């Protein structure tokens, strides 16, 4: 995608105020190993909300999910010296999280329903003719975003759309698209097959797309 069409979050609204300039997780790791508290809090700001969201897949309440995320941070503080760098720092973090969340969930006697059997179309049937061709085709977002829609609005719509997804979809799209893990890493962290990750990811992205499209049509109309 050309740089001019790239939609980026407004750094003023997307990041908590007072945090240091963005650095990659690997530089943070180095600072963390040196006992830098600021590096630790930056890591927390970066991943905590996603961690709670994913823990929620395994445990019955928001409070339990917060507890699992906090326990994970303790494990990170105690174990960071042993991190061998075989995976990315984020993948390591989320693997610790899901292991703990699974244990907590089994104590609550919860089974995790990752339902991939849902198989209806991801685009409304009314958008197509009987022959299966578009009768109401999409228009490129690039014509709308930056014009009638502010990037910050799009970011807000995406956040809301993610929060309204079923929990497995939230977990998959958060790890894959927000946190930037590979499909293989997502499958590993969530204990799913890569095929199932792609199925759930497709449905999640399609719903987010529909939400942004609905907003863009509202702005155009």
């Amino acid at each position: 995608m050309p740089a001019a069409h790239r939609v980026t979050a407004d750094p003023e609204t997307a990041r908590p105020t007072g945090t240091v300039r963005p650095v990659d997780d690997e530089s943070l790791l180095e600072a963390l190993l040196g006992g830098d508290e600021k590096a630790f809090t930056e890591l927390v700001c970066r991943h905590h909300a996603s961690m709670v969201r994913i823990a929620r897949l395994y445990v019955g309440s928001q409070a339990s999910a917060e507890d699992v995320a906090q326990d994970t941070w303790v494990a990170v503080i105690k174990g960071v010296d042993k991190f061998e760098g075989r995976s990315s720092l984020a993948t390591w973090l989320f693997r610790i999280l899901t292991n703990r969340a699974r244990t907590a969930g089994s104590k609550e006697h919860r089974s995790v329903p990752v339902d991939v059997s849902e198989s209806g179309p991801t685009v409304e049937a009314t958008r197509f003719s009987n022959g299966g061709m578009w009768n109401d085709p999409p228009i490129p977002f690039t014509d709308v975003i930056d014009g009638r829609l502010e990037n910050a609005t799009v970011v807000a719509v995406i956040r809301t759309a993610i929060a309204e997804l079923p929990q497995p979809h939230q977990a998959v799209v958060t790890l894959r698209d927000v946190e930037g893990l590979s499909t293989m890493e997502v499958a590993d962290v969530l204990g799913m097959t890569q095929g199932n990750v792609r199925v759930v990811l497709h449905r999640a992205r399609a719903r987010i797309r529909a939400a942004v499209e609905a907003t863009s049509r509202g702005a155009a109309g």
Partner: protein
Amino acid sequence: MRLRPPDVHCREAVELVTDYLEGSLTRRTRRAFEKHLRACDGCDAYLAQMRVIIDTTGSVGPEDLDAATLDGITELYRQFRTEDE
């Protein structure tokens, strides 16, 4: 004999987008999908929309963390770092 790629309708094409972007379509289906894209502005726009969605989702950044939560976790850090020493 070389098989011609099957015809794909828009309704099917939109369901192939993620597997296409993930590189997990069979070669035959990928060729059929790309052939359809070349002929269909609607599906081409749909794919472009999906790329924008993925790109923008990747840039939403972390959600704001409330100060009390961050303070609590920072307190854990101080506690356990001190225990280590």
